[in-house]
């Protein structure tokens, strides 16, 4: 025993074991229980432990579930696209056009050290019917009536989340831009590339790893986001997480909630894998 502990492997395993076990157990055990629950049924407070496909049948046949699942993936996709497109120019600016890189990186991360719940809440106040934006526009005389399309729809959800995820897109893209060997860019110019060509054929393909990282970091948690759709989504903007919460709360149907959690996880995994394969292939083709 002492011999094992003195070896490199033994020491490494022993030191990392508590953290590994903690995370491993809290991932694996709940997952197994979730799977078990998804095959049970619930009547009021009683859990019926007879195995059945009923929850999966309900999840696949109920139009509401299908609708929310598709909408969650679609909104997460839109959020990912919007965040990455808005963030790319900023990452480019910090990497190539400014000397004060540390200052800019700090400026971009500071707002995100504040509570996520409060930032979403703040967007609700900004976009509301009698909210900050409408009242400001009316005071300035730019509009007569408050704009109603701002809050309680998909747009509000996408805008709020594109704000919430900003640094998670900027930082990985910035890192991949920063890594680009500047002599490659000079070579492209010397060989007669226009600025646009140089960007599309050299810079952009070299930042594909950063873009993939940003997309995954944003897409995966967004599919399961609860706070934003609940606060600014209204009835049009509800997502699957809101339905899951209802099953564990008011509806008190834990087995269905467990089934929905598992299905959400599966769909996120499938979309993410397809995405990585597709983008990697595309990146090779451009080059």
């Amino acid at each position, binding site marked *: 025993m002492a011999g094992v502990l003195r070896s490199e492997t033994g020491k490494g395993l022993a030191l990392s074991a508590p953290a590994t076990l903690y995370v491993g157990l809290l*991932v694996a055990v*709940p997952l197994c229980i*979730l799977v078990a629950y998804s095959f049970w049924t619930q009547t009021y407070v009683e859990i019926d432990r007879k195995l059945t496909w009923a929850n999966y049948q309900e999840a696949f046949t109920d139009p509401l579930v299908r609708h929310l699942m598709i909408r969650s993936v679609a909104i997460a996709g839109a959020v990912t696209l919007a965040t990455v497109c808005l963030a790319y120019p900023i990452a480019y600016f910090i990497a190539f056009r400014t000397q004060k890189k540390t200052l800019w990186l700090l400026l971009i991360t500071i707002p995100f050290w504040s509570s996520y719940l409060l930032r979403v809440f703040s967007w609700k106040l900004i976009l509301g019917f009698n909210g900050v934006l409408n009242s400001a526009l009316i005071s300035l005389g730019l509009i007569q009536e408050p704009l109603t399309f701002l809050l309680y729809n998909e747009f509000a959800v996408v805008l709020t989340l594109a704000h919430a995820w900003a640094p998670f897109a900027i930082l990985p893209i910035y890192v991949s831009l920063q890594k680009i060997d500047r002599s490659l860019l000079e070579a492209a110019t010397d060989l007669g590339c226009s600025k646009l060509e140089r960007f599309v054929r050299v810079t952009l393909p070299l930042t594909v790893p950063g873009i993939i990282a940003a997309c995954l970091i944003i897409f995966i948690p967004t599919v399961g986001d609860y706070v934003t759709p609940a606060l600014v989504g209204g009835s049009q903007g509800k997502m699957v997480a809101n339905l899951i919460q209802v099953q564990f709360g008011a509806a008190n149907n834990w087995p269905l909630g467990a089934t929905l959690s598992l299905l959400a996880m599966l769909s996120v995994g499938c979309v993410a894998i397809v995405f990585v394969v597709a983008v990697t292939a595309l990146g090779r083709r451009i080059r």
Partner: protein
Amino acid sequence: MTKVIRIPWLAVYAIAYLVFLYLPVLLLPLFSFNDGTIVAFPLKGFTLKWYAQLGQQDTLLQAMVNSLIVGSVTALMATSLGLFAARAYVRYRFAGRELSEGLVMLPLVIPGIIVASSMLVLFISIGLKPSLTTVILGHVFVALPFSVSIMKSAFDDFDQSLEEAAFDLGESVVGTFRRVTLPIVAPGIIASLLVTFTVSFDEFVLAFFLSGNSPTLPVYIWSQIRFPAKLPNTLALGSLLLLSSVLLLLIAEYFRRRSIQSSD
């Protein structure tokens, strides 16, 4: 000769983007001092009464105490686990290292609702009622990746020969760790404590599922958002929370940088 003025579009965009980033964060403090109950322009006048009223709300103070307890215990647990794991990842090459590192980072990318629902199901199954304890267990899980990555960068630049020197001079393993390793990585530990505390202090979804009858501060705020009459108080409380998070993390950033510099 007319001089062509080139507008630096990218810089203009960058400034506009900063406004977009800071707008929601600065809005809460601005309206928390506004002498009116609706959040709209024009501003009505300056007041501190919304802040003064906070001190009289017992449920709020209880939620604050709950959050402080959860945050402190989470910070201690996550940082201890992260300290040893990061040490192993940086110092030793062992079978399963990459697997372990990947696993420990996993909580960052699992959607919150899935972590929350699966933990609720787990704790109920093993007979653990929702309470501050279950919130802490959940928060350690989500805070651990932050602790591990901070501690890894603290150990990364750590000069191995200092430890070897201590050994050669007759210090024991524990003594070396306590008298050489620990003081050098101390700024990293402080940074990790502060960051994991803040992660826990701001976390909502897990606490919402796992806190039962003892709400943390974000859960309390969630319950207040529904009442328009409470809005100014919620703004004042939110502003204080924003300020404390940003301050704590700025201090953490200071220590994190010091931990990287000190080992050069």
